[in-house]
């Protein structure tokens, strides 16, 4: 009965989720800062390459110290590190975004199918999910890097997504099951709603914050993985990005031993840390949205 009531309440309020979201984000300044950081980097990724099309080189100013001309100094070829950081954001973020897209599409589809249909389909899909979860993603990725060159964000994003959807699928399934147990689906069905409607209009919005949480977490992991592959030099350097910068700084510039290349090392490092911090701070808001127990007491 309660479920029916809740459902009808939901149907009455058109966009309660949006309001709750706005409230959750503005409740603490940290969350706003987090959102700000994320938006900043997204803007950087979109617009950065417009400002600095191709990087200038200067063999006479290798590993120059930060100055008015070069805010973060220069790299091994005398290119401006600040410009590189800006340009490099695009590959990093677009790869993470694509990977998140693949992950969510795969994870949500599998999770919903399994959670909604139960039975054979459920157990079959869950076996596959278990398999994907068990296969260690990073080692697989480095093995795959011997076959595929991850030149475009699409390839890298696809592979990251293919290895990373297990968690989301499981989470979505368990959420779908919980909603099912709460009689949510029966109630909706009782109101005569078709299953497509139930899945798209009722299930999805209810698991959205949960999926968002998982996605943001996996975005962090994706950034770590892709940057790591470039950092270790396992993937050919096909573009300017933070991982390549880290690799060059450590393995060509000697940043671990020489102060000259330290800024070159720290610039992408700080970017990764900042972006992670932004996502983590922002995640707090989504966590609260999803977990009402946190909300009550906050």
């Amino acid at each position: 009965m309660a479920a029916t009531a809740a459902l009808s309440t939901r149907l009455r309020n058109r966009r309660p989720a949006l309001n709750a979201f706005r409230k959750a984000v503005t409740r603490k300044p940290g969350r706003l800062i987090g959102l700000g950081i994320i938006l900043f980097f997204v803007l950087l990724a979109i617009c950065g390459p417009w400002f600095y099309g191709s990087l200038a080189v200067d063999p006479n100013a290798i590993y120059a110290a930060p100055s008015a001309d070069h805010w973060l100094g220069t790299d091994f070829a005398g290119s401006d590190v600040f410009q590189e950081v800006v340009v490099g954001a695009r590959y990093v973020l677009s790869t993470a975004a694509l990977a998140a897209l693949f992950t969510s599409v795969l994870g949500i589809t599998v999770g919903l199918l399994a959670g909604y249909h139960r039975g054979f389909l459920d157990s079959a899909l869950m076996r596959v999910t278990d398999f994907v979860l068990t296969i260690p993603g990073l080692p697989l990725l480095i093995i795959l890097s011997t076959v595929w060159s991850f030149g475009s964000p699409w390839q890298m994003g696809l592979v990251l997504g293919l290895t990373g959807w297990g968690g989301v699928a499981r989470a979505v399934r368990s959420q779908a099951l919980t909603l099912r147990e709460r009689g949510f689906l029966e109630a909706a069905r009782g109101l005569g709603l078709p299953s497509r409607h139930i899945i798209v209009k009722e299930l999805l919005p209810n698991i959205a914050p949960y999926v968002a949480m998982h996605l943001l977490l996996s975005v962090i992991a994706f950034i770590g993985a892709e940057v790591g592959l470039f950092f270790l030099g396992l993937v050919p350097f096909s573009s300017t990005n933070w991982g390549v910068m880290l690799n060059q700084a450590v393995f060509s510039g000697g940043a671990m031993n020489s102060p000259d290349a330290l800024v070159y090392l720290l610039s992408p490092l700080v970017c990764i840390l900042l972006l992670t911090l932004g996502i983590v701070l922002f995640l707090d808001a989504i966590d609260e949205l999803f977990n009402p127990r946190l909300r009550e007491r906050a």
Partner: protein
Amino acid sequence: MTGFARRLAGKLLAGLVMVWVVVTFTFFLVHALPGKPGDVQYESYIMQGFNPEEARAKVTAVYGFTSHDPLFSQYLGYLGRLLHGDLGQSVYYSGVPVSHLIWSALPWTVLPVLTGLLVSFLIGVIAGVIAAVKRSSRWGGLLSVSGSLVAGVPSFVLALLLLLVFHTEWHLLPDAGTSDITLEPGWSPEYVGSVVQHAVLPVISYALLSYGGWLLAMKSSVITVLGDDFILASELRGLAPVTRARYIGRNAILPLFTVLALSFGIMFAGSFFIEQTFDYPGLGELLLKSIGVRDYPVMAGAFLLITVAIIAANIVADLCYTLIDPRVRR
């Protein structure tokens, strides 16, 4: 306890099936990879002054450890040898058994990972409880954010920062190896001390890697348990605070066994980042090295072992869960 035995058998069977799937998957994946180990060496022979035919001859002489049987019979042979614990022979180390290489590397991954796991478990769980109890205060919030942040920062970034601070800047800890080579391996305090000293940074990295997971999981688990009926009931029955804390603790820790398996997997799979950064000769570095020289048997063996470790961790975690929670015991 027969239920327990049945559950164990079921889990083991499922694990075996999973291992078989992974074995098959790795076998065919590895055989689909282009390039041969000898190709890498060929050029180095050329550089040493061999002319092309001689270099080719030498490559076949030294790297002739690849089979020419049809793929499927190779696969069957591989499975058969696996049953006897034979992972094949290394190509790069001309004929050295892969299992030998893996056994030499394994302890240097397992020990730091387990130690790191233990340390992070202790700290993470305590921090998680604090974060849950003080969740409305500023410090509780900060603690939670620290957990998410540490969980989110890529392991190699952490490792690099640790190395920068503790080795490059402060010269406190070594940056490579597992012990001082001049010391005789054994149980002498100097040797053990040296091993511990070399392991500090990798262990800290592993601990940091999983600390956030523990913290966040424990926090949410404690919050959930705090809202459980029996906790309120025990309060209304006037149970002593210590007893109540024990009730909360034991119930809250239960879901963490899933996290345990997960963390172990993450750490094991991510070990190559940390081992590479600290030049620590574990499984991850072996995998990286074998990929670098296209030593496919070693690659397959290391990958397989990492996967088996994760599967085993899952089973162990599940069994621990069973032992502690009477509801699943049946």
